[in-house]
């Protein structure tokens, strides 16, 4: 099995995609750029499991840290506030 593509500290972009089926990438995070906070291990793909397939090969899962002000341009909290969200590798691309 290939190594995980990303490492802690890498900047990544969450894909700006809108599939019709079940997925676990929250709508509000799509298209945003953030930093890999940690690698969580590999997990069966929920987009397959939802339709009773086996979800293999398992997909690397990461936690991505996003500044609140990047998610919500009119964010009213403190500038240093952040959000961390779990995103599967096939939803991430390098942010060069």
């Amino acid at each position, binding site marked *: 099995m290939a190594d995980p593509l990303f490492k802690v500290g890498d900047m990544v972009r969450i894909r700006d995609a809108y599939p019709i089926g079940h997925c676990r990438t929250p709508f*509000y995070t799509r298209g945003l750029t953030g930093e890999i906070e940690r690698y969580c291990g590999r997990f069966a793909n929920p987009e397959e499991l939802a339709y009773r397939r086996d979800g293999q090969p398992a997909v690397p899962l990461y936690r991505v840290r996003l500044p609140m002000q990047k*998610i919500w341009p009119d964010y*009213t909290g403190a500038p240093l*506030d952040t*959000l*961390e*969200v779990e*995103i599967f590798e096939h939803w991430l691309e390098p942010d060069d």
Partner: protein
Amino acid sequence: MHDHTHHHPHPNQPDEEDGPFTEYRLLEIALRELLIEKDVITQAELHKTYRMMDDRGPHNGARMVAKAWSDPAYLDLMRRDATAAAKSIGLEPTWLNLIALENTDAVHNVVVCTLCSCYPWPLLGLPPDWYKSRAYRSDVVQNPRKILAEFGTTLPETVEVRVHDSSADMRYLVVPKRPEGTEGWSEEELAELVTRDSMIGVVPALAIEDL
């Protein structure tokens, strides 16, 4: 409990506390009875599951937090592998992939699942309604300080509020800050200060004067 005399058994728990029999409650009875009749599940397995559920609750998470406050080696294990930390004190580990989130003077963590209601059941029991509510799930990711204020929690701008959206396979346990004046307390005494809501991250642990 009613005396059921018809041909199929009603494997009900006492249901006097339940509200009116809605269509969904009828469906619950029907589905459960059919699953048992078809030997998909058994009554004994169900009772075992009820007992397992009864053993869950915030007292489990509180044990972990109190131990982390007291034992630097355990805190270190919580940081590296919180699932292993849960197992090491005999808690039901099963499916849990746990991450411990430590509140400090610089960072305050709060947990949500915007997509459903993911929650560390074995450690906290079943979640409160507000955690599953549309309003919490929609708003805490956008206005966390407003939601925290609803719980009486206000934080200075110098503290980073870090919201964790439990969107996939990980589950989260917030480790609140250890209350002041608790030096020398035993783990059992400390655990009394650790509430469910403090482990979701919407309030701090209880202060001594709250006891």
